[in-house]
Every structure is written in structure tokens, then in C-alpha cells.
């Protein structure tokens, strides 16, 4: 279906082709019919193997034929046939089929199935040789790479040997993405991130390997399916350092037809010790190598991008190597808590969490209500949660409000605010700058490295001024080093990018918007408002910044007056979570839709002048609001 060129042929050629196809069809149909009737009759014999083999060599994607073969092999095994002869025949067949279609899922899967059957008797170095041959033919064949990882998980090679293999491939080949990808998996295994956090998490899990148990055991169910068990390979290697490769899936067998001899290891149905939260962190933390490795790897990467600055795979890899360098935390932490008597209590977080992870306490007792979310997406997680302020509090009594983020029922972050007697509202707001300082364990260590990297990139950029990869990477690195210092350089390069890489102009514009808003947030904290020692903004202007997208809206929760006029917004996504908003100015944008803002119950003034709201349907979202004033001139729908 792919890559079949339509070539003009003569009537004669057409005739010949038709004839040949007719013959093929007859053969195929005859063979399939014979196979199906034998199978229906429960015949598991040599003839069946022969016919299916003939069919599969031409049509390796017919899964049913592989299934039948498995049934036959199981039958033969039970009848004490020579396992090694049988397996060698399957190996030969699968290899022929893979040659015919190197991308046949079933053919590769069948070979894996056979290897698992062989277990300790498998010749893994032979399998590795097969992978080498097929990767020489097509270095991007992901079926082959996945099979290779399976072979490695059985001891066919060590992660270090595999790393060397990828190095050789990268040095010799043009199309390297698969090799770089594999390196991204191997490095953290060989040189794990040994930070305190990771150590603690691994200990908590009591794990010798870093992966949660991956087992297929179905609990008792009233289903038609028999209980299936996966046979897990022995996952501990002989190496002293923990170089366990991620095990590929074991084969699933039905209980009554167990293919595996009893020597295979079977894991018992153990509950995983770690909590979901810990597993998440563990997985994220263990996907990066340690710092020394990163610096070393950067040398390899630099060589690669100097050799060929247009090789995109190295740039994707480079981005990953530098790490997540945003100063904004992507772990959920409390950004603000806002409470208003008679109205609501709202909390915003740096990253979305579920309502079960956030607890509200009023005057030491759990709040009666439930958290609701205004996040536009239908996600069960949100960065902004709110509850109605309970009725039974009179204005002249102080009320203490405590919000905490929990994991496994224990609080990991708590903030308390009090609305004093006679006061209507109170706000707690944490400046993102604090995040910046806290997360800078990473940035501190990388500061020199990043500066050095920037110099290399700038030098290369001078030789290749229109190379978008270099431009984009410089932007990324500058942002990491000092977003405020480099604000103009970044802007210039993003503009250049919209010229040299016009296909992705909207991506660059959105990134520019993101960076502008992040810079605004950083500066927010440096200004004090009246109202005590908390510094937050109720008045926020993002006007005239050329914004195409509103990012990080949850950070603006306490804002009551927002000005986003004179930008390039086509929608107001994100505004919906600005729960406290009383006045919104979105004049002079390119709004074609308003979005779901029906949750903005406090909004009284809305200005949408000079946009592209030309049809009454586009004004539907205004219906749920309690606006005192709404300005719509300069839109097609204004006259409605």
C-alpha cells in the first residue's frame, strides 16, 4: 500500500499482469482454503506447516497463519518433537519473511516468540548478528531495533556494548535518529542519575530494577478467557552496576497450553510497593543520565553538529541532553490561594493535579464542599481548583484557611491564609522567581556548560546564518542562561526563524508569546502592591506584546483587571481559569472565538472591540455571564 509507483503500462503488459495475478490468486485461494479446513479439523501436521510456510513467505502479514503455526508447534512439542529442529525451521522461515517484508509486525513477533520458547538454548549472538544485518539494510527499521532490544534484554549484549554500537553507527551513517534515540535509553542505564532524590525513591521501592513489575496476571474474572501468565525473564544481570535493560514483554500463554518449560522464572503476583506519585517521579528522574555523562556526551554531539549542521536528529538529541531548562516548575506546587467571603476559595498550581490531591481546611476542620475545576480541557486534572465559600461565616469573624497538596494522604505542601475580621478577601501568591531559585541546583551546575555551549553555537551560527536548528537551539540556551538579559537576542532570532522556516511561523510566534509572559511573571514578583507582605498583582497588563497565545494563566489567578489588548490572539483560551477577573480588555486582537468563559462569575466589564467576531454563534459564550458592560464595536456581530 505504500510506495507503489503507478507506472504506465501497455495493453500487452496489462494482459500479462492480469494473467499472472490470476494465477497467484488461484494459488493463494487454494492454499488458504486447504489451511482453513485442516485447522478446522484440528490437524497439526507437517503438511500444515508446509502450506502455511509457502503462504507466509509471500504474505508475511497474515497473522492467522502465524497463529496456526504456533498451535502446530505447541502440539508437536507436547508430542516430543525435536524442539531444536522445529525452532531452526521457524528461524529460517521468519528470516525469509523478514527479508520479504522487513516491516512485518507478525514475522518479527513470531521470531521473538520462538526465542522465548528456546530460552536458555537460544543463540543470542546469532540473533544480534541478524539485527546487525537488517540494520545495515535499513538503519531506521524500528521493528529490528525493538527486536534488538529484546535480544539485549536476554543477555545478547551489554548496554555498554550497545552504546559502542550506536557510536559506530552514528559515525558512519547519515540517517541516525534511531541510534541517537537508543543512546537516550542506554545512557541513563549505564550512568544513572545518582542524585539523592533518585536514591531515596529507589530504596523506597525496594527495587533492584528501576521498572515496576510488569506482569500479566488477570485476577479472577467471569470472562471467557483462561488465565494468562507472562513469563518474565530473569531480570538481573551479572554486572555489579545496575545495567538492567528494560525487559521486553514476555510471551503471553494461555494456561492450558503452556509453551514454557518449568525452568522459566515466574513472578508471583506482588503488589508494587511504590505509590503512584513515587513511580512517576522515579520514571522521570531515571530517564536522565548523570551530570558527568551529559558533559561528556556533549562532545560527541558537538562533533556531530559541526560535521553536519543540517542533521536534525542531533539537534533533537541535543535539546534532550541539555535537559528541561525552564525555570518554571513542572511539579505541582501552590502558586496562589485566593479567598473571598461569600464567594469562593480558589487555589492555583504550577502543574495540574487531581482534586483528590488537594485539601481545604477552614478553622481546622475539613471543608464540606468539593473542588471544582474551570480548566477548559475535559481533563480530570487542573491547575486551578475552587470551592464555594461556606455560608456559616459572618464577616466580623476571622477565618483561617489552609490548603495543602497531598500525596498518599500526607501533605507535601501547605499554605495558610487568614481573612481578618471585617475584611472581605485575602490572597497568597508565590512569585515564580522563587521557583527559579529553587530549581537552580540544575542551572547552577550547568551555568558554565551552557555559556560554553552558547559560544560554540554562536560561532557555528556565523558560518550558517540561515540554519534554523542553530537559531532555535541558541534561543533555547539563552533562555536557560538568562531570559531577561537575552530578551532582545531571543526576539531577533525568533523573528529570523519565522523567515527562514516559514512553515512553522506560528510555532515561533507562540514560543515568543510564552517567553514574553514568562518574563512578565519574573518581573511581577519584583513589584509590591499594598496589602501586606505578599506581593501580587491585581492589575495586569499584557497589552501590545504581539501575543498569539496566553500561557501560564494559572499564575494570574489573583488578577482582577486584565488587559490583553493589541495582541494577535485568535481565542481567549486560558482566560477561563482567571476566576477573579472583574475587568477584561481584549480589544484589537484577531479573535475568531471567545472560548468557554462561562465560569468567570465576577466579570462585569468585557471589551472585545475590533476583532473578528462576525457571527452571533461566536458570541454564545457571553450568555452565561453577568456583565454590566460589554463593548463589541468593530466586529461583524456588533450589529446583532
Amino acid at each position, binding site marked *: *500500500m*505504500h*510506495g*507503489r509507483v*503507478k507506472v504506465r503500462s501497455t495493453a500487452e503488459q496489462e494482459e500479462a499482469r492480469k494473467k499472472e*495475478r490470476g494465477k497467484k*490468486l488461484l494459488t*493463494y485461494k487454494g492454499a*488458504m482454503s486447504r489451511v482453513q479446513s485442516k485447522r478446522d479439523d484440528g490437524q497439526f501436521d507437517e503438511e500444515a506447516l508446509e502450506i502455511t510456510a509457502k503462504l507466509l513467505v509471500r*504474505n508475511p502479514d497474515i*497473522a*492467522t497463519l*502465524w*497463529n496456526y503455526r504456533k498451535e502446530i508447534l505447541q502440539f508437536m512439542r507436547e508430542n516430543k518433537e525435536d524442539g531444536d529442529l522445529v525452532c531452526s525451521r521457524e528461524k529460517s522461515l521468519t528470516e525469509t519473511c523478514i527479508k520479504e517484508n522487513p516491516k512485518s*509486525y507478525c514475522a518479527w*513477533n513470531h521470531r521473538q*516468540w520462538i526465542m522465548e520458547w528456546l530460552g536458555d538454548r537460544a543463540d543470542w549472538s546469532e540473533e544480534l548478528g541478524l539485527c546487525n544485518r537488517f540494520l545495515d539494510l535499513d538503519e*531506521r527499521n*524500528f521493528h529490528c531495533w*525493538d527486536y534488538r*532490544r529484546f535480544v539485549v534484554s536476554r543477555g545478547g549484549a551489554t548496554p555498554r556494548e550497545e552504546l559502542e554500537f550506536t557510536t559506530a553507527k552514528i559515525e558512519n551513517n*547519515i540517517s541516525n*535518529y534511531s541510534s541517537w*534515540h537508543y543512546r*537516550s535509553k542506554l545512557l541513563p542505564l549505564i550512568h544513572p542519575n545518582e542524585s539523592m532524590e533518585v536514591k531515596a525513591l529507589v530504596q523506597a521501592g525496594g527495587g533492584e530494577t528501576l*521498572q515496576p513489575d*510488569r*506482569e*500479566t496476571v*488477570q485476577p479472577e*474474572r467471569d*470472562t*471467557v478467557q483462561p488465565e*494468562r501468565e507472562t513469563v518474565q525473564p530473569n531480570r538481573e544481570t551479572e554486572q555489579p552496576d545496575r545495567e538492567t535493560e*528494560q525487559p521486553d*514483554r514476555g510471551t*503471553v*500463554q*494461555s494456561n492450558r497450553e503452556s509453551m514454557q518449560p518449568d525452568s522459566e522464572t515466574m513472578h508471583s*503476583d506482588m503488589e508494587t510497593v511504590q505509590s503512584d506519585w513515587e*513511580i*512517576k517521579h522515579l520514571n522521570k528522574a531515571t530517564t536522565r543520565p548523570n551530570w558527568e555523562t551529559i558533559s561528556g556526551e556533549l562532545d560527541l554531539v558537538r562533533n556531530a553538529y559541526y560535521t*553536519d549542521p543540517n542533521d536534525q536528529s542531533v539537534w533533537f538529541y541535543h*535539546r534532550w541532553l541539555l535537559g528541561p531548562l525552564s525555570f518554571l516548575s513542572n511539579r505541582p506546587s501552590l502558586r496562589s490561594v485566593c479567598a473571598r467571603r461569600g464567594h469562593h476559595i480558589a487555589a492555583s498550581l504550577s502543574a495540574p493535579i487531581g482534586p483528590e490531591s488537594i485539601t481545604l481546611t477552614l478553622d481546622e476542620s475539613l471543608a464540606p464542599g468539593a473542588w471544582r475545576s474551570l*480548566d477548559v*480541557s*475535559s*481533563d480530570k*486534572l*487542573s*491547575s486551578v481548583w475552587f470551592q464555594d465559600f461556606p455560608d456559616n461565616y459572618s464577616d466580623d469573624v476571622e477565618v483561617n484557611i489552609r490548603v495543602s497538596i497531598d500525596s498518599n494522604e500526607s501533605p507535601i505542601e501547605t499554605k495558610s491564609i487568614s481573612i481578618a475580621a471585617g475584611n472581605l478577601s485575602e490572597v497568597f501568591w508565590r512569585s515564580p522567581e522563587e521557583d527559579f531559585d529553587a530549581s537552580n541546583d540544575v542551572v547552577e551546575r550547568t551555568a558554565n556548560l551552557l555559556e560554553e555551549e552558547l559560544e560554540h553555537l554562536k560561532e557555528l551560527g556565523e558560518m550558517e546564518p540561515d540554519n534554523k536548528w542553530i537559531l532555535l537551539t541558541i534561543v533555547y540556551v539563552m533562555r536557560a542562561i538568562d531570559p531577561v538579559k537575552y530578551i532582545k537576542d531571543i526576539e531577533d532570532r525568533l523573528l529570523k526563524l519565522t523567515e527562514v522556516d*516559514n*512553515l*512553522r511561523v*506560528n*510555532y515561533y510566534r507562540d514560543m515568543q508569546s*510564552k517567553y514574553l509572559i514568562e518574563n512578565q511573571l519574573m518581573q511581577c514578583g519584583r513589584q509590591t502592591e499594598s496589602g501586606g507582605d505578599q506581593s501580587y498583582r491585581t492589575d495586569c497588563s499584557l497589552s501590545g506584546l504581539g501575543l498569539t497565545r496566553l500561557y501560564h494563566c494559572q499564575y494570574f489567578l489573583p488578577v482582577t483587571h486584565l488587559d490583553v489588548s493589541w495582541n494577535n490572539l485568535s481565542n481567549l*483560551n*486560558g482566560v*477561563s481559569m482567571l476566576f477573579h477577573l472583574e475587568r477584561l480588555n481584549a480589544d484589537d486582537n484577531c479573535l475568531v472565538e471567545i472560548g468557554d468563559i462561562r465560569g468567570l462569575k465576577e466579570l462585569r466589564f468585557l471589551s472585545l472591540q475590533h476583532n473578528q467576531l462576525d457571527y452571533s454563534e461566536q458570541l454564545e459564550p457571553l450568555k452565561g455571564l453577568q456583565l454590566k458592560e460589554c463593548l463589541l464595536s468593530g466586529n461583524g456581530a456588533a450589529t446583532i
Partner: protein
Amino acid sequence: MNTVDVKLPTDAVKDLLLKQHIKFIESYNSETNHYEYTMTEYLRISGIYWCVTAMDLMDSIDKLDREAIVGFVLDCQMECGAFRPCPGHDPHIICTLSAVQILITFDALNKMNIDACINYIISLQCKDGSFTGDSVNGEIDTRFTFCAVATLSLLNRLNDTINVDSAVEFIHLSSNFDGGFGVRPGSESHSGQVYCALGTLALLGRLSEIDADQLGWWLCERQLPSGGLNGRPQKLPDVCYSWWVLASLAIINRLHWISKNKLVEYILACQDMETGGFSDRPGDWPDPFHTLFGLAGLSLLGYNDGRSLAKVNPVYCMKESRLEDSGISIPTNYYS
């Protein structure tokens, strides 16, 4: 190093040949395409889903024989609850999703054994949250997770069946350095798998757990100078990726990160003027698979202001109004 790409022919098709496509699908049967039809019987039911959905997007479903198709599909349901691609072949989760999609399109869902189907899907889930494709092979693939979740969602039984948390965890384990997703943990990122992962997360309400900007960037980098999209870096463009990549971008609300006009140009150039239908790239043989995804891509791009084609749903790849009529909750307002 030159970019791997195609060059659009100077006489490339510039309009949507709707009538020809209707004819192409209508006449794609055992008579006119006898050879392909037979040789692809191992995926017949999915082929039917491609044809049916393509016709639905062209608002021409009445041209198909509803009775015959529904009859065929129902005959494909096995005792275990799963569907086979056609008689004589074994059942599989992929065929099961296709079957349910077809039955919903023809408003015949009540005719199948829903409970048996649900039980089958539940039985495919492994302890680590992954799904096998059937009950005989051990093959694990994030495609199967999507098929399982999408089918359950279409049957409105996501809530009390599979282990959602572990299914999501497995998806995350299959993510990579570039933000993309592969076949299984350790596998290279591939647009088809990205679509399956995002579709799964969208249906399970867990899209906010990914870095949309990072993944969006990898996805928009699929667009080549020809305007077409490839499936992963340094590969040729293919019209089916104007679905997998595009739907992925739509799900994370970043469709505008590619050039719509250039992509439309590419997709239109993949039409076959003689027979109708779309092929993977200009000048190749057309088939129903690429025809569906070419049309679906154009629909998602709002081709001709939505006047030529019905609106397609980016998660299910089905006509959106069809889903609304069936009362299926569509995860709207994707990630913002």
C-alpha cells in the same frame, strides 16, 4: 545532507475531486479490485471501516449497501467477543475497533454482543497496564491500548472496566527523549504511535500529563518543504501522516503550528485523476486507506471552509455528527 522529500509535480491536482473519490470507494469491491481485495482479506474489516468512513465524510454513505456491510461485520464477531477481519481469520483488537466504528456509523451497535466484547478487551490488559492485541500472541503495542480504550469509549464503558491508571502509566513508559511515543517502552517515536498515545490520554482525561509544547514541536517538524508530513524525522512524506500527525496536533490544540495551505496542496496532489482515490504520495497507486486519511486530513484543516467535507473527530477518526447522534461523549475542548 539533503532533506528526504518529494517534489510536487507541476501539473499537480489543485481541487478536491470529490465525485471521483465517491466512485473510487463505491466500486472498490471484489469485482473491480479482485486481486487487492483478496490479498488484503486479513485486514478486510479495517478496509471496510476506511471505505465507510471516507463515504461518511463525503456525506455519501447511502451509496453503500448497509445491510450487507452490517451483516458481514456481525458475522465477524467471535464467541470470545472480539471481531475477526473476515471469515477464516483470527480475531484481534484492531478489527474489534473497526467493527464498532462501522456499527456506530450504521447505527447498528445494538446488534452486536457488547458485553462479550467488553470482557474480551478487559482480558487483554496486562498488569503493567499495556494491552496485547489478542489472546494468543504476547505482542504488546501502544496501538492496542488505543484500540482498547477507543472501543470501550465508543461502547460507553470506560468507567468500570479496565485499569485506567496503569493504562496511562504504560503510555508514559513508552514516551521518549523527544516527547514522542513508540510501540512499547524503549521504542523510537513514531507519529502513528503518538496519535494512539494522545488519543488514549484524551479519552482518559489525562492529556495535561504531557509536555504539549515539546511534543507539538516534534510533530510540526514532520512538515517537509513539499508541504507533506512524514511519520518521523528523515523519512518521506505520506498522506496518511496528514492524519496521524494532524490529529495529534489537533488533540493538543496546536494545529496551527504547521502550514495548512502547504499541507492542503500536498494532499490534493496525492489524488489520482484517473481513478479517484488518494495515494501515499503523488504518482503512486491509490487505495482506500490513504483515501480516508487524505479526506480526514482535509476535513481537519477546514478545507473549503468545511463546505466540501463533513467535520471529522480527531480522536476517533469518524464523522463528528455521527458521534453526537449516537450520544457518544466527545472529548471536546482538547488541551488548551
